[in-house]
């Protein structure tokens, strides 16, 4: 690596993968609970498994983003990280706090967790994805501030590039919008309105900036294309992201008690949200096509291209399928939502983190790229995970369409549970695909331990 302090990225990446494994294990538990309702009850009830699954996802992606920043910012800024010590300290604080929170979800009933963490002093618990005790949330804010400070100071003292600035903007936005998790109005409509200021403006807003910046960085490194070209693409992409995504928040405001005009504006703007993802795909393929060098890290190239495609399919296409208000009226909160959610998160954010890890880890371990055998195994894991996610998505899409039809349309709509029974076959097939995903993940981890001849950096 070019700068010694980039080494702090390594523990972040390792923790990310570790938590990823945990996330998938709990995903599998839930997948089975969908069809064998008492599985692991009462030791791990469904709601506890769900909290663990979703929270681990977010936390491991955050570790991934932080690792990515610690790796690429010194290189972009052409200066050492402001404080490697701070980075390592925050790493342990974040990891321990996160682990304790997960233990809390599993070890005690949620109400007890609320009591022992003194939630009543400043209540922020009880909402989807934001189940963390208030003290954990405060810890996240501290970690985020320290992280932003560290990265910010590094950018300030060095070269400022479009990539580092876009990344910083995205990370800043991530931190700012997280603050809305502290806003807990009594009015249910307002509660839901602002909840999306965390969730939507994260994943359909500032996180896309982070995604774009990381992908742009990796593409410059592996293709050698002119920085100016890459940066111009990046600016266009994030502009489209913000144009479509900000008012696109309205596609979550159709049925929650907000004024009816959101059905118009949410539909119009969110319908265009696939555009930046489409551009991201073209961007990735175009840069690789126009490459000026043959980088030895083929696996990273595959991840980069795959991110573009899967993000477009999962976030863009599947998102579009149910974004228009007249459609969403029927599909809201069904398995179609889950289908989109899984492919979108995997395609956009899981894959971009795996992309940067794929590119950076070998460098952090002292080589330009892993040996051929290791790369082949890694590329196998790419296909296993990606294809199995596609099948998970297809099965859940089938489940969702059937569920919508049976439960909300036709002359004799079924009850929720009756419809769930009718779509059980899809759940079984989804679980099977999930097992293949786990195999892919295991393959992925294995690739890190395969030894062979490597090229120097």
């Amino acid at each position: 690596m070019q700068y010694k302090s980039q080494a702090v990225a390594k523990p972040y990446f390792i923790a990310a993968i570790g938590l990823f494994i945990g996330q998938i294990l709990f995903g599998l538990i839930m997948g089975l609970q969908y069809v064998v309702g008492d599985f692991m009850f009462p030791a791990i009830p469904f709601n506890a498994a769900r909290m663990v699954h979703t929270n681990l996802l977010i936390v491991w992606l955050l570790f991934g983003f932080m690792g990515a920043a610690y790796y690429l910012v010194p290189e972009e800024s052409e200066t050492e990280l402001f404080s490697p010590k701070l980075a390592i300290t925050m790493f342990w604080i974040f990891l321990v706090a996160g682990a304790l929170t997960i233990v809390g979800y599993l070890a005690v009933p949620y109400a007890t967790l609320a009591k022992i963490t003194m939630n009543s002093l400043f209540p922020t618990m009880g909402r989807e994805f934001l189940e963390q005790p208030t003290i954990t949330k405060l810890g996240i804010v501290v970690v985020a501030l320290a992280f932003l400070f560290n990265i910010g100071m590094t950018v300030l003292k060095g070269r400022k590039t479009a990539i580092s600035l876009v990344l910083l903007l995205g990370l800043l936005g991530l931190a700012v919008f997280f603050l809305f998790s502290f806003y807990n109005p009594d009015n249910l409509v307002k509660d839901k309105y602002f909840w999306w200021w965390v969730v939507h403006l994260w994943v359909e807003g500032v996180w896309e900036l982070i995604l774009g910046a990381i992908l742009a960085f990796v593409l410059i490194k592996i293709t050698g294309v002119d920085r100016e070209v890459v940066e111009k693409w990046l600016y266009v992409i994030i502009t489209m992201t913000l144009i479509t995504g900000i008012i696109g928040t309205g596609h979550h405001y159709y049925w929650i008690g907000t004024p009816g005009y959101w059905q118009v504006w949410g539909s119009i703007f969110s319908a265009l949200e696939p555009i930046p993802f489409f551009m991201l795909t073209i961007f990735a393929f175009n840069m690789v096509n126009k490459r000026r060098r043959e980088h030895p890290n083929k696996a990273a190239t595959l991840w980069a291209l795959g991110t573009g495609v899967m993000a477009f399919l999962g976030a863009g296409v599947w998102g579009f399928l149910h974004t228009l208000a007249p459609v969403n009226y029927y599909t809201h909160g069904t398995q179609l939502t889950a289908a989109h959610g899984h492919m979108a998160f995997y395609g956009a954010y899981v894959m971009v983190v795996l992309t940067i890890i794929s590119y950076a880890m070998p460098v952090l371990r002292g080589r330009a790229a892993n040996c051929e055998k290791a790369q082949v195994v890694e590329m196998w894991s790419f296909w296993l995970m990606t294809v199995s996610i596609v099948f998970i998505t297809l099965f859940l899409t089938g489940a969702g369409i059937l569920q919508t039809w049976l439960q909300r349309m036709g002359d004799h709509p079924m009850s929720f549970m009756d419809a769930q029974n009718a779509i059980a076959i899809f759940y079984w097939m989804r679980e099977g695909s999930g097992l293949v995903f786990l195999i892919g993940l295991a393959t992925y981890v294995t690739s890190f331990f395969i030894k062979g001849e490597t090229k120097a950096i």
Partner: protein
Amino acid sequence: MFSRKGGGAPLLFYREFPNMTASATPEETCSQETDGPPGDLAIWIFILAEMLVFGVMFLVYAFTRANQVELFNASQLTLSRTAGAVNTLVLITSSYCVVRAVSAIKQGMSHLCANWLSGAILLGGLFTSIKLWEFSEKFSAGISLESNDFFMFYLMLTFFHFMHVLMGMTILAFVTAKARRGGYSAQNHVGVETGASFWHMVDLLWIILFPLVYVIR
């Protein structure tokens, strides 16, 4: 590239391309011999995107109107057609000023260029003033986004457009400042054309908006 040894290495689906020289260079100065619209290509992607978004909004307006023709016709009469028409003339004239500005810098006259641009910005300011007057008129009459679908669209469409006028004025202001300090020349004035193109788009959108919202019934 790896040889495919052993049990089926997974596909790397991109082909080997001959080593190409940089095929995408930073935008060249000035020249628009045949291809390529004036100004930076990136702004044109932005322009097309904006036209797409507004185009969709125009169509949603039109189709929503189709179901509530009487309501739309009646509500439309409460708009100030004069304000709309004057604003159309204002924008067209400001676009003309921008054209003159580009013409000036093509002849290396950067001060003249800056002056024409200032004129365009002033006219932009006039547009926004008239628009603000229209808005305040409506608001004091108790009209809001929830009054009815026509007013919802009228307010949102013209508000979105208004924001783009402001954006355009900001862009032109930066270009004007640079022109004034001699930052552009006859050979290198991509920035002027870039800003100009954006401003013309703002004009173009209003050219559709005015008849659509204010007149067609």
